[in-house]
């Protein structure tokens, strides 16, 4: 089984610890994305898997073999770097073949492998060009070609799309996903872009300050964030947060704040939390716009409506704080002129402990 196992992985530079005991099991053929803000330790973790950084403590296993003290070349991993790491003096063909030549593979096998990989990545007509003569997307493909050609057990991607423009990034994202589906190689991918994480990952690992905040499928993390950090990090625009107090409502608990009241799901953890001060999280996508005629709506002050084509972002304020609603435009443009509040299904609301930031227990929404 060519998975990757991290057990209590710690990285310290002198007295400064930057990764504080990571536990992660990446299954064979799985595509796992490490996501988090800059400086959260995701790239350091990836570099420890690659062998480019020493592991201070903990155990790293690749394919079931302990590799803490194994040289990078003997770990059977291939890495794609943020700035592509292409050799400027070599052409595309030589760049792709570099790893195989270093390992002194037979020339005919190298040529066949390069040809095959170039075919997969659509690079056949560029084989004689040097990196300087390629576009950003083509360079990125060459970098992936270098990784693929070695047929490693694990692919490691370190923010490979961050140097590309938005359009190309979308295109390359899809190519990476297709490539993974085709090759089925275990992959660990680092990014700070939550859209990349959501679209590429089988499972996402959200990291913050050298720790794992939550591990799960993209939809699990989107619907059931374990804490306020994950809730606000994943999703664009981020989840709206409102300070409130839990009160006993009519047959079910409710969140009350500055004259407003929102019904919450009828679950034990919320029913037992009456009187507690909490943070209520509402995703912009889950708030449904309402006009004055809708009973039970929560009133908001509209600041700005941004029309993005098929959808619109309504920027408003609720209890003196910014509140964003994302809504469809098709067929309801006229409705947008009369928005004065919103409603939200109770099961799509998340309630967090204001002190610890953790989601109160028992709130689960099925994907």
């Amino acid at each position, binding site marked *: 089984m060519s998975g990757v196992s991290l057990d209590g992985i710690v990285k310290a530079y002198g007295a400064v610890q930057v990764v504080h005991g990571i536990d992660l099991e990446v299954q064979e053929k799985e595509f796992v994305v490490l996501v988090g803000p800059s400086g959260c330790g995701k790239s350091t973790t990836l570099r420890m898997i690659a062998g480019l950084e020493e592991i201070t403590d903990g155990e790293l296993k690749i394919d079931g073999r302990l590799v803490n003290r194994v040289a990078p070349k003997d770990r059977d991993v291939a890495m794609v770097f943020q700035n592509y790491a292409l050799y400027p*003096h070599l052409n595309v063909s030589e760049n792709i073949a570099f*790893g195989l030549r*270093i390992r002194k593979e037979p020339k005919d096998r190298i040529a066949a492998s390069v040809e095959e990989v170039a075919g997969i990545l659509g690079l056949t007509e560029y084989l004689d060009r040097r990196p300087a003569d390629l576009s950003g997307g083509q360079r990125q493909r060459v970098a992936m070609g270098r990784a693929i050609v070695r047929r490693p057990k694990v692919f490691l991607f370190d923010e490979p799309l961050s140097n590309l423009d938005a359009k190309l990034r979308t295109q390359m994202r899809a190519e990476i996903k297709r490539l993974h589906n085709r090759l089925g190689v275990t992959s660990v991918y680092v990014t700070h872009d939550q859209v990349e994480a959501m679209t590429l990952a089988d499972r996402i690992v959200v990291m913050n300050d050298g720790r794992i905040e939550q591990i799960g499928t993209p939809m699990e993390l989107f619907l059931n964030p374990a804490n306020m950090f994950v809730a606000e990090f994943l999703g664009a625009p981020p989840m709206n947060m409102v300070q409130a107090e839990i009160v006993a409502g009519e047959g079910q608990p409710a969140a009350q704040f500055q004259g407003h009241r929102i019904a919450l799901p009828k679950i034990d953890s919320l029913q037992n939390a009456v009187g507690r001060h909490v943070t209520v999280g509402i995703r912009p996508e889950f708030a449904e716009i309402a006009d004055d005629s809708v009973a039970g709506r929560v009133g908001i002050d509209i600041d700005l409506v941004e029309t993005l084509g098929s959808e619109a972002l309504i920027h408003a304020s609720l209890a003196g704080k910014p509140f964003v609603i994302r809504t469809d435009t098709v067929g309801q443009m006229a409705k947008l002129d009369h928005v004065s509040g919103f409603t939200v299904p109770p099961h799509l609301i998340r309630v967090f402990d204001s002190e610890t930031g953790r989601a109160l227990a028992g709130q689960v929404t099925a994907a």
Partner: protein
Amino acid sequence: MSIDPEISGARTEELVIEAREAQRDRKAGRIQRVGDHLRREWQIYLLLLPTIIWLLLFLYKPMYGLQIAFKDYSVFRGIADSPWIGFEHFETLFNNDQFIRAIRNTLIISVYSLIIGFPVPILLALMFNEVLNQGFKKATQTIVYLPHFISSVIIAGIVITAYSPSAGIVNTVIGWFGFDPVYFLTRPEWFRPIFIGTGIWQEAGFQSIVYLAAIAGVSPTLYESAVVDGASRWQMMWKITIPSILPTIIIMLIIRIGNILEVSFEMIILLYQPATYATADVVNTFIYRQGIQGGQYDLAAAAGLFNAVVAFVLVITANTISKRYSRTSLW
């Protein structure tokens, strides 16, 4: 091929006038752009000014005096009033055995220096780059840079002392093996090795800074990527470091070739003596003896001009070859 009747006779003339006007407009536009640029960036050009003045005063103005290479120059008549004599000085030079010997010595010393001395700073830089212990690296770098900052007179003193037949360390070591002392600095066959060796010792460390800077510019991810691919340090040096600094190596080589006839004049003056003229006398020392000591300024100017023309041709040739085959060039 038929000619369009529209574009003939008067029409052709009109087109030519239009084209000329358009060209004039383009030129005027360009001049205006340069003017705008100068007005906008005048501070930068002000910074450049001292260097331009220095170049004009000390490199371009003296070129006026080059004409004495073609004149029967007299200090009393001055440069302008001395009579023209064409290439007479050049004929004299090429009929002078000492000058021919000086050219031969210059070329031999330069080519040996180039072949032996040029790779040394590159090797030093590559070795420094491989040293992991920062303390050791800094200490060795300081030691090899140091001779560059010592005056040539002192370096020559050290060399003379080191090779002294009575108390020099070299002859002392030779003496340990039972051999007689060698009078190195009076033996023509030893002059070139000693001179080239001294030059390398004095300058190789300092010259390695250029290559170290080039190595520092190589992206660390190239090495990391190679490490993951399984490259050893040796392979990384050959397949990443050297190709990455190759443009710098070529530029340095072109500059070096341009200066091939400029052997270290002071060091030769300090180390040579009539006994070693056969191998040590170079064009610059010949110019010094003829021009300054012998008062033949016009002959010395002709020899200097010859030197400069050869250097110019060499630099152009090296640059053209490099441009064609390695896509790297000075201009």
